[in-house]
Structure formats: structure tokens, C-alpha cells
């Protein structure tokens, strides 16, 4: 307690130098929390968005389905397994049939993914109910804004599509754009046309078939897979996003290291200067009866108190700042969302977990203490008589 009191008196007595160090360190502390909060919030929002619009609570894939290889689509379909029929009929799972085809906007040809979805599905956040207005002659289609921009199609436009059924026969039909949806998930937009599942099955000559089956979120028990249908859990489906976030965290670590290095260098410099400038004071403390260990403890604690003051100062301006960004969010420009290529929220809400705050606080305090202690090791070799003369032995 005595040492803490003395250390506190000393660093407060040091005036401006102390407060400058404390400010730089608190800035590093708040910046680390803010950036890491943004990354965490972004990861959480991306995953939620992907789950809501694309992945559901997991999927069953036809054994030949490989989303990154369009050539597999011709073969990757099969009858919906009996084990999933109950889930599908109770709207806790929804089948999707996918094939590759071509679209002819303004006489040009463009490849497209044709996806059949149940208009009554409630699992994915896709406005599929618009596909209900099915007539025997017109096939309603749902596209995203990116696809609309790419094909220059607008609401109500007719366009010809061509595809091959499961027997290899080419066929073509006109579709009408029933809605252009605005979505933050390019995975359900870019190069894709959503059609009613029943019409799609007719077009493909594949009654009751699907390419994949999306399960509801938070599903309690997942039916067992089969040789034909393989279960893909969220761990598998979100693997790429997790990897992207890891890379992002790693690259932001460089920034943390720079920020911390800047702050720690200031404290290290102060400590080294203290050891050299305050030798006489150390000698006096020893003459007055303080042990060498006590002097080391005092000087280390002085450095470590910079960390504590920085945490307090950081809390004073950091809490309102972080709270404000967490509540209001940070709007992202549309171009930035499209450039990411993955589902991205339009407003980013940082997420600060207790683990993040506690971990960062601990990290700052420990590194400051270590950096404060390193120069004080010189004191262990200090002879009181030399110190009193202002010499460093």
C-alpha cells in the first residue's frame, strides 16, 4: 500500500510527462478495443447475414454438389430424402434446386444460375413469396440489384432463359422479373435468378428433386445424412468467413503492435530516463531505509501505474465513444459492400465482448508492467553510495 501511495505521488508529481504517456497509452488501448470491436462485430454480422439469407441452420447437399464448380450442377440433384420430408412439410427445411443456364437480355447471352425455391419457405430471408404469382404462361423471377445492374433488367421486364433438363435436352422460356431485391448478400444475387421451385422442377423434368436442402436456424436435432445427401453444418459452411476474419485479425494485430509499441516506447523511455535522472533520489530512498527491492518495486509500480491511469483515462473518453459507435453503427458505402464479395451489412455495429475488454485490459497492464520493470533491473546493481553521488554502478 505504501509503495502504491508513493508511486502514485511520484507519477502525479511528474506532471505533464506522466499525462502525455498516459494519453498515448490510453489512445492505443481505446483504438485496439475499437478496431477489434469492429472486426468482431463485422464477423458476427456477416455470419448472421449469411445464416439468414443463404445458409440457414445447416444444409444437406447432394453428394455431387460443389458450389464452386458449375459443371457439377448437371449431376447434383436427386429426390428429397425421406428423412427430411417431415421437416420440409413442417417448413423447418426447404429444398433448393439449382442448375446452370443462360439468359438473353437485349439479345446478348449471359450465363446464370437458376435456382428454384419454395415461395412459401420461411427459413431464408429471401422475398420468395413474390414467386407465388405464378401463371401457366409466365414464370415469375426474382433477381437481386447486382444481377439487375449486370443484365440491365428492371421490374416487369421479360427475358428469355435457356437451360438443359436432367436428360440433357435444351429448353427455353420467358420469365418476368417479379421483383428486384436489395440484399447485402451477393451470394444470393450475383448471376442468379430465383424461380418457383415447382416450375423449376417441371423445367428440369426433375419432380421432387433438389440440389440442397436448407435447415431452419437453431435446429435441435439434425437427421442423419446418407450416401446421397451429405450434411454440411455451419462450421463447414462458415469456414471461409472464419478464415477471412482470422486474416483480418492477424493484419490488424500489426496495427495493435504499432500502437502499443508507440505507447510502450514512451513509458520505457520515461523509465530509462528515471533510472538515470533519479539516481540521487534512489540513493536517498535507500539511505532513508528503503530496501533495493523496495526501490525496484516503487519504480516498476510507477511505470505500471501509467497503465492503470491510461485505463481510467481510456474509460473516460472511450466508453462514450465506443458506446456511441456500438449503438449508432458505422454506415458502409455500397461499393465497399459489393467489393467484399461476401455478405456484408450496410451498417457495421462494433461488438465489445467482456472477453475482449478484459483481455485487452490485461494485455495493456501486463505489457506496461513488464516494460516498466525491464529498466529497473539496473537498480539491483546500484550501490547506495554511488547512487547518492549520482553515479550508476
Amino acid at each position: 500500500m505504501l509503495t502504491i501511495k508513493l508511486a502514485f505521488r511520484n507519477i502525479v508529481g511528474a506532471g505533464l510527462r506522466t499525462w502525455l504517456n498516459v494519453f498515448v497509452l490510453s489512445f492505443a488501448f481505446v483504438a485496439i478495443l475499437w478496431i477489434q470491436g469492429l472486426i468482431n462485430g463485422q464477423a458476427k454480422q456477416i455470419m448472421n447475414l449469411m445464416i439468414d439469407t443463404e445458409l440457414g441452420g445447416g444444409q444437406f447437399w447432394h453428394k455431387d454438389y460443389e458450389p464452386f464448380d458449375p459443371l457439377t450442377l448437371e449431376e447434383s440433384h436427386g429426390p428429397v430424402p425421406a428423412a427430411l420430408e417431415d421437416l420440409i412439410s413442417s417448413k423447418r427445411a426447404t429444398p433448393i434446386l439449382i442448375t446452370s443456364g443462360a439468359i438473353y437480355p437485349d439479345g446478348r447471352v449471359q450465363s446464370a444460375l437458376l435456382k428454384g425455391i419454395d415461395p412459401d419457405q420461411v427459413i431464408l430471408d429471401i422475398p420468395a413469396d413474390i414467386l407465388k404469382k405464378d401463371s401457366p404462361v409466365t414464370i415469375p423471377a426474382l433477381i437481386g440489384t447486382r444481377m439487375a445492374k449486370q443484365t440491365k433488367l428492371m421490374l416487369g421486364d421479360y427475358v428469355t432463359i435457356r437451360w438443359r433438363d436432367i436428360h440433357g435436352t435444351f429448353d427455353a422460356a420467358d420469365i418476368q422479373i417479379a421483383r428486384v431485391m436489395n440484399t447485402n448478400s451477393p451470394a444470393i444475387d450475383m448471376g442468379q435468378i430465383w424461380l418457383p421451385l415447382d416450375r423449376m422442377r417441371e423445367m428440369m423434368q426433375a419432380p421432387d428433386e433438389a440440389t440442397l436442402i436448407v435447415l431452419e436456424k437453431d435446429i435441435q436435432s439434425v437427421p442423419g445424412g446418407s450416401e446421397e445427401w451429405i450434411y454440411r453444418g455451419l462450421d463447414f459452411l462458415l469456414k471461409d468467413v472464419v478464415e477471412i476474419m482470422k486474416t483480418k485479425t492477424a493484419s490488424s494485430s500489426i496495427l495493435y503492435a504499432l500502437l502499443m509499441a508507440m505507447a510502450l516506447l514512451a513509458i520505457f523511455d520515461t523509465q530509462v530516463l528515471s533510472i538515470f535522472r533519479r539516481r540521487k533520489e534512489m540513493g536517498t530512498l535507500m539511505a532513508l531505509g528503503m530496501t533495493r527491492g523496495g526501490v525496484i518495486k516503487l519504480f516498476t509500480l510507477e511505470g505500471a501505474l501509467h497503465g492503470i491511469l491510461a485505463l481510467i483515462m481510456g474509460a473516460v473518453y472511450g466508453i462514450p465513444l465506443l458506446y456511441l459507435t456500438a449503438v449508432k453503427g458505422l454506415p458502409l458505402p455500397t461499393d465497399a459492400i459489393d467489393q467484399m464479395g461476401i455478405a456484408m451489412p450496410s451498417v457495421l455495429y462494433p461488438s465489445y465482448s467482456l472477453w475482449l475488454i478484459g483481455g485487452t485490459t490485461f494485455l495493456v497492464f501486463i505489457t506496461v508492467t513488464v516494460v516498466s520493470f525491464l529498466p529497473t533491473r539496473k537498480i539491483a546493481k546500484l550501490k547506495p553510495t554511488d547512487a547518492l553521488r549520482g553515479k550508476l554502478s
Partner: protein
Amino acid sequence: MKNNVLIKTENLVKNYPMGGRKFTALNDINLSFNSGEFTGLVGPSGSGKTTLLNIVGALDNPSEGHAVVIGKDTSQLNHRESAQLRNEHLGFIFQTFNLLSVYNVFENVEFPLLLLGMSAEDRKKDVLQALEWVGLSDKVKSRPAQLSGGECQRVAVARAMVKKPKIVLADEPTANLDAANSYNILDMMVSLNKELNSTFLFATHDEKVIKYLRRVITLTDGKVVQDIEKTPEPNNA
């Protein structure tokens, strides 16, 4: 008051390495000091006064021989025990005052009591008393930078005396003071010596200090060349 031996040196030698050779700062010093003494080690620069004071103050160890201070052989003490001896029984007064610049007068004087683990109430009482001894009761909140040299040294005296130590070691205490302040400080020390029966041991070559001493030990080239008792001649000016 009964006078007993507080400090005893036996065949004390202190050598310092100097290049490839050794320099002998103290050579075969045999002295003893009783409680209540007002004694000075005098001699020219380099004669070994400060070295002897440092060894007696457990700030340094002898190369040979022993210095027994309040029954403890300083050469046998570890760092912690030396610090404890200084903390409990020794007061130091330095030529350059050595006040802690970020503390005010009260805090500077309070410091040795904090190390002794005294309660806040007792500390306050003792500090105010010590400041009264040195006539600085009105400067409690001042920082060393706001004080004159004489006032700084009075704070240093209060800091040394606040714990009523058995021994006070003063290294050239008047070297940075003018004549008036020097006499003022010395008068104060004489009165505290009488009041508290603390042993005062000076290292000095200042004639003003020497006039006040009751015992003068002259050192030359690390040896005691004279050890005389004398009648002090306090300043009558």
C-alpha cells in the same frame, strides 16, 4: 543520561580499485562513539571522512575490519538488514539536502515514518513536532523548489530527526549554506542533540561546524591523526 557505545570500528580498512591498483581510503581505523556525542570527522578532501560515514551508516561495507553500529556488525548485514538498521536507528543529512522534489515539506519529513509503518495520526503528530523544531511549521505545503537553501536543509534536518534516531550522520551539512543559515542549522542541531540525546557524527572541513563540535577526529590519507575532546564555541555573533 547514561552514555554507552553506539558505534565501534575495529581495524577498519576500505580499499577502492583504481586502475590496476587499489586506493586505500581508510586505513586501520579504530574508533568508538558514545550516545549523545557531537563529533566531527575533519580533514581535507579525500581524507576518508565520507567513506567512514558511509560505512557507519551501513551504506557501504569495509574491505577489512568491522564497524559495529548499535550492536550490529555492518559487514555481516544483508541489504534488507542494512536498510532496516538505517530505517530504525539512523538519520542522514546531506550536503545537497537530497529532498524528494515531488513531495512537499510535510511529505518529505513524513517519509521515514511511512517506512517505519507508523499510523497516519502518529505520523502527523511527529512531523508537525519536527517541523516546529526546525521552525518550518508555516511551510508544510511548500515544495522544495519553493524553499531557500537554508530552509531545505532545515527540512532535511527535520526528516533526519523526525524518528528520533540514535545516530545522525551529517555529510558536509553546511557546505551549501551561507554563514547565517549555517549557524542557524548548527544551533538547531545542538539543541536537538541535547533534547534527544542523539549522537551527531559530522563529516566536515567547515570551520563554522568545527567550532560547535565537542570531539574532533582529524583524518589524513585515511588515517586518524588526531582525536581530541574540546569545549564547543557556539556562535556568539
